[in-house]
């Protein structure tokens, strides 16, 4: 029983670290703020959640805390990405290699909000 739990935990450890590494690689490689936000969001969702699943399987007495933290991370990560993207768009940071922008010129009409 513990052997199965440990093997699953090992898998989640390796997978979470691999996703974190890919996320950091994308963070270094992608051209502008908006595309980098996709990569950094993946680090928090995949890396931390997979590590927490491994921690639930390995550490005694932490299952409820771990599940609470997974729930909180899944709740917080998209709103952090949205806040950063909105701040970047409002301060007028340009997008690299942009192909289509439906939002262009609409922000001034709707005024300051949020």
């Amino acid at each position, binding site marked *: 029983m513990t052997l199965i739990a440990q093997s699953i935990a090992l898998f989640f450890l390796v997978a979470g670290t691999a996703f974190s590494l890919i996320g950091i690689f994308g963070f270094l490689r992608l051209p502008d703020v908006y*595309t980098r936000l*996709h990569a950094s969001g*993946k680090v928090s969702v*995949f890396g931390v959640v997979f590590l927490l699943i491994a921690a639930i399987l390995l550490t005694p007495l932490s299952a*409820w805390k771990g599940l609470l933290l997974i729930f909180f991370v899944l709740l917080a990560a*998209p709103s952090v990405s949205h806040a950063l993207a909105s701040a970047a768009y409002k301060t007028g940071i340009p997008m690299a290699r*942009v192909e289509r922008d*439906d939002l*262009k010129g*609409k922000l001034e009409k709707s005024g300051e909000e949020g």
Partner: protein
Amino acid sequence: MRRVQIAIPLLLVYLALSGNVTLPNLVVGALVALGVSSLLPVGNGAAFSWKRLPRFLWALIRYFFVVVTDILEGGLSTARLVLDPKLPIHPGIIALPAGSRTELGAALSAHAISLSPGELVVEMDDEGTLFVHCLDVQQSAQYAEAAQRLRRRLLREMFE
């Protein structure tokens, strides 16, 4: 009644954090949860009813699985994009109708879109149109609307 509705999740969080479910701890947790919920503003969401609980839970479970598969798919495709030596990204912002009338439904569908990597909500206007930044404009414009329709149907089952 609304206050108790807010207080029960707070009590569950308290119990999860303190880690022991004994009677004194339960009483203290209930008192703290009621105190905190009296400080919070009461929203104007739908009232709780026992009759709708099974349908709500069933829709919640299906929604959870839809979101998890979305996250996994989006994560793998983004990883493939990042590791590709030619970096074939076509970034851009597209407009998507949120379509949910309630505030909570709109917030949850925006959350689900941002959670799946590869798509990211930048802004939302008064009519409820979401402006989504995607790594691949053509692909997202094709698939996002169908996925959005499925999520919207489940959200409507939950909250309306």
